[in-house]
């Protein structure tokens, strides 16, 4: 996966920590943006971007946890890493349980830091890919008529056209066959197994 299209965001109110992290990531060739507060980060409107956010747990103004909650609420694909100071471990652990990628205790070794960031970016790449595929699948799915959607769900669970015609009662066997053919053609699929996987994967 090419990670170059992904961004790194650093939110920390200690200027030294913020600048040093920026410098570190810059030196490793990452695209990095730094913010001195949660408000500044949210204002920059990066929520729908793809990448990784490194959040300090303790911030003036809204806290790292609050930013995390907002991202989750907006269904953001950004991967979150927390930076925790002395005594905040429990908060960080809780955040991870709630879906954060991980945490780093200050101070931490550069090796660990970079490794975690790398992993996070891989996850971010997956997120991005998933988003793209999902979008594509959705546009295909939306081309189906409601009747076709209905029939495709029945086809996916392995029902024969006869069975479908019987179940829907007001429809002819031949018509089912027509719909079925049109579904496969529109979604670019070959058989009912693929249709089943398609529906499960994208949760239609």
């Amino acid at each position, binding site marked *: 996966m090419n990670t170059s299209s992904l961004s790194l965001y650093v939110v920390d109110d200690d200027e030294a920590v913020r600048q040093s992290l920026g410098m570190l990531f810059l030196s490793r060739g990452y695209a990095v943006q730094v913010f001195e507060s949660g408000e500044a980060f949210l204002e920059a409107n990066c929520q729908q971007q793809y990448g990784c956010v490194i959040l300090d747990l303790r911030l003036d103004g809204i806290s790292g946890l609050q930013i995390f909650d907002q991202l989750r609420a907006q269904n953001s694909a950004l991967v979150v890493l927390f930076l925790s100071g*002395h*005594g905040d471990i429990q908060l960080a652990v809780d955040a991870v349980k709630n879906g954060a990628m991980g945490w780093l205790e200050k*101070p931490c070794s550069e090796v660990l830091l970079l490794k975690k960031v790398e992993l996070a970016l891989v996850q971010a790449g997956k997120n991005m890919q998933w988003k793209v595929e999902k979008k594509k699948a959705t546009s295909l799915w939306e081309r189906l008529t409601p009747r076709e959607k209905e029939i495709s769900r029945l086809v996916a669970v392995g029902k024969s056209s006869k069975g479908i015609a019987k179940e829907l009662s007001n429809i002819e066997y031949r018509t089912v066959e027509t719909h079925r053919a049109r579904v496969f053609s529109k979604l670019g699929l070959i058989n009912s197994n693929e249709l089943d996987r398609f529906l499960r994967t994208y949760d239609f």
Partner: protein
Amino acid sequence: MRNFISVLTRFSNSPPTRRDALWATLLIFVVITVYVSGNWSATFALKGQVESIQHSISINALGLLSNAEKFSSLPYTASLHPDVLSILKDDKNQSGKQAVNEYLESINAQAGSDAMYLMNVDGLTIAASNWNSGQTFVGRNYANRPYFIDALRGKPSVFYGIGQTTGIPGLFLATPVIANRVVIGVVVIKVSLRDVEDAWAGLTAPIMVSDAKGIFFLGSVPQWKFLAKEALSEEGLQWMSRHKQYGDRKEFTQIPWVVERLEGGSIYIIHTALEGTPHRYLAIDHLIPELGWTLTVMADYHVVIWARMVAWILGALIAGLLVFSILYWRLREKRFLEQSTARQELELRVIDRTQELREAHAFQQAMGDSLVVGMRARDLQGRIIYVNTAMCEITGYSADTLIGCLPPYPYWHQDDLARHWIDNANAMSGQSALTGFESRIKHRDGHDVLTMVYTAALVDATGKHKGWMSSVVDITEQKKTEAKQRLHDTQLQHTGRLASMGEMVSTLAHELNQPLMALCNFASAANAFAKQGNNALLVESLGEITVQAQRSADIVKRVHGFVRPVTLGIEICQLNTVVSSVLAILKSEMKLQHTQIRSNLLENLPFVKGDYVLLEQVVVNLIMNGMQAMQHLPCEQRVIEVATLCCDEMVCIKVKDNGIGIAPNIAASLFEPFFTTKRDGLGLGLNICRTIVESHKGLLTFEDQKPAGTIFTLKLNRLI
């Protein structure tokens, strides 16, 4: 009597009640009863009067009738006399006339009538009993008189009138003289009714007789004679002038009566006046048919009125008496009830009081025995008159031994005798302090007991000062504890300070993590930039490394400063520096607690003498307390203000929070060791702070802040 009036007043003033309605009904009943009894009495009296009238009527009617009838046979007898018949037949018979004259004279004299005379059919008198008197009727013609006219028709007649010749009233009884069924003459006898009238004159109530025309001609009241019941008609008047019944009288005016008919009609009341005096008479008319007269008999109506009045008065008096009797009876009942209630209450109260006294005594006894405080009462001479159980236990002596003792008491400490005498003298003169005094006594078994003695005057129920009551508290244990406490305090301060330092070091370590993290990152970046040959960024990173290293060093220095050994009072300190350094130390703690800090430091603040580290510790403690007091507030409201200022000869640091404040009930114990409101607090912070401040000869005070929060003020003497 006053009670009576009050009862009456109460009736008149109070709003209407059921009882008042009862009284009103009773009143109406009494009034009706009195009224009815009056009327009944009046009716009764009326009945009596009517009876007496009827009695009088029967007597007088009979009298009148007998008076008339007594003489009625005489004319008839005379009419049968042969001489009478002969002279009527032969007008010339002079001797016969004389004989008749004499005959009539003798009968008249014998009968006692006024006159007797004989008329021929022309009405001419031909013989009379008064033939030889000056006013003889002989030769006079009475043809106009009704009795003559009636007799001429052949029937006897009766007539009352005034004599035409004599002018004297009288009753004329005339009988026809009949020969061969032809009336040839009329014999008349005139009878005076003066005797009757004379008899009536003595009566109290008038009796009157009226004729068929309603004219009163006879009666006991002369003024009413010849007055008519109703004015005579023209025809009646002509009849009167023709027949001259009552002489030459031309007018017969109406009698001055106002008549009021009673029920039934035959009885009536006459309102009239006699000789200027108004009178009321009860009257009944009685017709005497034989004579054609009406007898009007009266009785005094005032008797009836009086009877009613008397009945009313008597009734009212009896009713009044009855009402007063009821009122009196009720009053008496009420008073009796009150008295009996009062007596019962008194008895109950006596019982209650006795019970109360017994209970109070038992209560007092129990109280005295249960007290851990010794109680000792003495009279004015100092003789013990009472001790409780606790007092006996404190001293080890029994109550029997102690009671009656005079100073020196057996429990006085041999080594403190002089002191005991002084205390005793003070107590006996009422000069011992209200706060009490300490006194060491010796227990009977020989060990020392430290006591606190409080004395107050013993005053009896009449207010008389009878002696002194002392309470004696055993404070031996307390004293021991206090001594132990003092020993511990110094150790505790040390422990507390160490604990406080531990916290501080932890905070500082955290603070140190930030530059260390930055250092790490910059170093790693520098490494990378060096490999990449990116010199500009390499230099920048290295510069940052220097800055962060310096920052770390500063932090370490502060930690070092905080934990170095105590050097009390040897430095000249600037309190602004103390505050700044504390704020730097607490910066990360502030962030953790989301607390804002506002400092307001006075420029050119005078110096003080003290120990930087200890003073910093005090300020750290105060700020930490403030932060903890604001934990319940939303983050944006957590504000601590720190100010330095100079007042009088003192230099102050004020630490202000807007937290929960200090409840009044804990304010007093705030500075005590081991006092804490925090769940995991040691309770040493403020105690140590105060110790430190006091060792600097300063003051540490606190006050409530409006609307919420607390201000702690540290004051130190300025250095001159």
